[in-house]
């Protein structure tokens, strides 16, 4: 499928794999099997750039490269998810919020205690 979302993912994966600046025409040639027009490649690149995943330099022709690795993006997201505060709490619903070590110990005792009760009955 050639939806924009799929293309964005494919182009970003490609940029990550190459690891070096790539021009739009090179990208089009790399994706020859998908039969992309150069304008489509530019659309995908500018969308990725808007979202902050791709950078370009001022060389002629323009060279594009990925901003940050996949691991860096995941780490950044997890940092926000785990350390969420204030407004962020409204942005996503996390299964269990952050708790301290003391509370973890108490939770384990709660669960173990309930298990003993069930076994005693």
């Amino acid at each position, binding site marked *: 499928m050639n939806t924009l979302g799929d293309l964005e993912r494919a182009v970003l994966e490609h940029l990550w794999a190459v690891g070096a600046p790539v021009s739009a025409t090179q990208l089009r040639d790399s994706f020859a099997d998908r039969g992309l027009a150069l304008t489509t490649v530019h659309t995908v690149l500018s969308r990725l750039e808007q979202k902050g995943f791709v950078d370009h330099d001022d060389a002629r022709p323009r060279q594009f490269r990925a901003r940050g690795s996949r691991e860096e993006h995941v780490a950044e997201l997890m940092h926000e998810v785990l350390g969420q505060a204030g407004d*962020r709490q409204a942005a996503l619903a996390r299964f269990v919020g952050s708790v301290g070590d003391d509370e973890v110990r108490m939770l384990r005792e709660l669960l173990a205690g309930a298990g003993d009760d069930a076994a005693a009955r």
Partner: protein
Amino acid sequence: MLPATALALGLLAALLAWPVPAALSRASWPQRDPLAALVCWQAIGLAGGLSIIGALLTHGLAPWGHSLPEAWWHWVTRQPPEEPVRGDHWVAQTLAAVLAVELLGVLLLSLLRTARTRRRHRALLELVVQPAAAGEDTRLLDHPAPVAFCIPGARPLLVLSSGMVAELDVAQVDAVVAHERAHLTEHHHLLLLPFVAWRAALPVLPAADRAHDAVRDLVEMRADDVALGSLTGPDRRRTLAAAIVAVAAGAGGQLPDGALAVIGGAVAVRVRRLLAPAAPLPVAARVVALACALALLLVPTLLLVLPALV
């Protein structure tokens, strides 16, 4: 008529700003019926805002007429006041305007900000992570900590970490997914949003803090209840409780001890009510709670409009 109305609204606002939220957040029945309690909190928030702004407006516009709709119309059409306008009338008008703009403005700002954060998170997840086998709206994130969350919105996303799948058994992961799906289908983010906004708007009001925390904990309990309804298996309550403890333990230790009130924290309350459930609230009590919520909304509305009709 107007001064009595302003006085009554002011009294209601004072009750809703302090004793009512304090009593509700201390009460134990909300744990037995989180949904009815959530309705009550929404009513408290709405009625509180309505009565304080209504009280200020009614007093501020008193020289222009005998009821708020009439006085408002005279004021808008720039008719001369029927009685002399004193300084306190101007102060009340200004305060009403400032409060209304602040409450609605912060709500709007909060709405935009969370929408932007969600859009960014969704874009990142859609680009960085392949859709999981479980469904088009589920993503498996490669991360060792056991974490699950959902991003609400028109195109919701449910995210599990690889650590979650590795540490929990299949039944527990099902319980986690059912809990997160309950948040999405019941739009819990919309119930929480006004309280996030008003806590930011009214940092001096302890009730705003209290209301936010209560609503945040109640939607979790409600999601637990809904999840239990959709789970099968011999001991669903224990499975969900074990999943909560496992996730809390796996992701724990990021907070310095003492950063949260430790004993009786929100997570412990959830685990306790799963392991040793109290009897559900009787139907009559639930009806009373919902009737109180309705009355809370009707009283300020009627106080504002009724003088115009009699």
